[in-house]
């Protein structure tokens, strides 16, 4: 018979480490999807996921069961991703010379027809990733959660541990930082 989440957690807390495995199996896809928003290399994504699960095991005593386990785990995942971004702030000031031909084409099409259809979505996706990589960790986190994942300010405050006014301030700064980066990118290409 399949055991409930609460039973599994109680068993882990009682010392049965094997009961943690079904939880890892069930929620790893969400952890990996979130980690892939912030890290590109597979090894980095795996490191983040591994750290999330080890932290979850170590801090399981602090899970009081008031909110679903998934919410508690996602908070831990987002915070681990934020720590990862802060620890890997590299190449943010580099030029956009590494933009591929496909991404360059997409930009040219956009310049020619800004309202045009979403052709070459893969190129646009890679371009977004490159732009996001240039953002500060706070800006990247807030743009991803607010604009890409469509969370509310309150949800972001809960996920990140920041206050709601701080999320709003960071969202405002993040948008202007992103526009600056886009401006620099297009200047480098077209001036």
């Amino acid at each position, binding site marked *: 018979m399949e055991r409930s989440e609460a039973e599994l957690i109680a068993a882990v807390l009682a010392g049965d480490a094997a009961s943690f495995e079904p939880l890892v199996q069930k929620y790893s896809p969400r952890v990996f*999807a979130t980690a892939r928003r912030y890290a590109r290399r*597979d090894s980095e994504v795996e490191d983040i996921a591994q750290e999330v*699960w080890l932290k979850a095991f170590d801090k399981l005593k602090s899970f009081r069961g008031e909110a679903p386990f998934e919410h508690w785990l996602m908070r831990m995942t987002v915070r681990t991703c934020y720590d990862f971004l802060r620890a890997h702030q590299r190449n943010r000031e580099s030029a956009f010379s590494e933009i591929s031909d496909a991404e360059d084409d997409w930009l040219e099409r956009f310049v020619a027809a800004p309202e045009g259809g979403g052709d070459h979505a893969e190129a646009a996706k890679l371009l977004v990733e490159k732009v996001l990589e240039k953002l500060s960790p706070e800006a990247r986190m807030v743009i991803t959660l607010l604009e890409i994942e469509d969370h509310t300010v309150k949800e972001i405050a809960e996920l990140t541990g920041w206050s709601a006014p701080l999320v709003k301030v960071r969202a405002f700064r993040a948008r202007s930082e992103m526009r600056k980066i*886009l*401006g620099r990118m297009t200047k480098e290409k077209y001036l």
Partner: protein
Amino acid sequence: MNLPELHHKLIRTARLRPPDDRVPYAFEKRITALIRDRVAERNRHSWVQGLWRAAISCVAIAFMCGVWMFFAADRPGSNSDDFSQNFENTLLASVDQSDTTP
């Protein structure tokens, strides 16, 4: 260049393509193995810590006994030979008893 439009278009593209949620093969087994290692390590650590505490307590008790014996021997009117003999007799009482028993 219409930057706000470019911003919206890029964000729209990112929204349309959610990241892959693929999990590497046997990832949960790897995590469980790591957790088992951690638990074993933690148990080992708590044993080592306990033994160290016990060792420190033993050293402290031995030191206090030494100090006590030293000052007891210096006290006027005390008989250090008697004291040490009594101490030894007390400690080895069970051994002495077993030696004398046929």
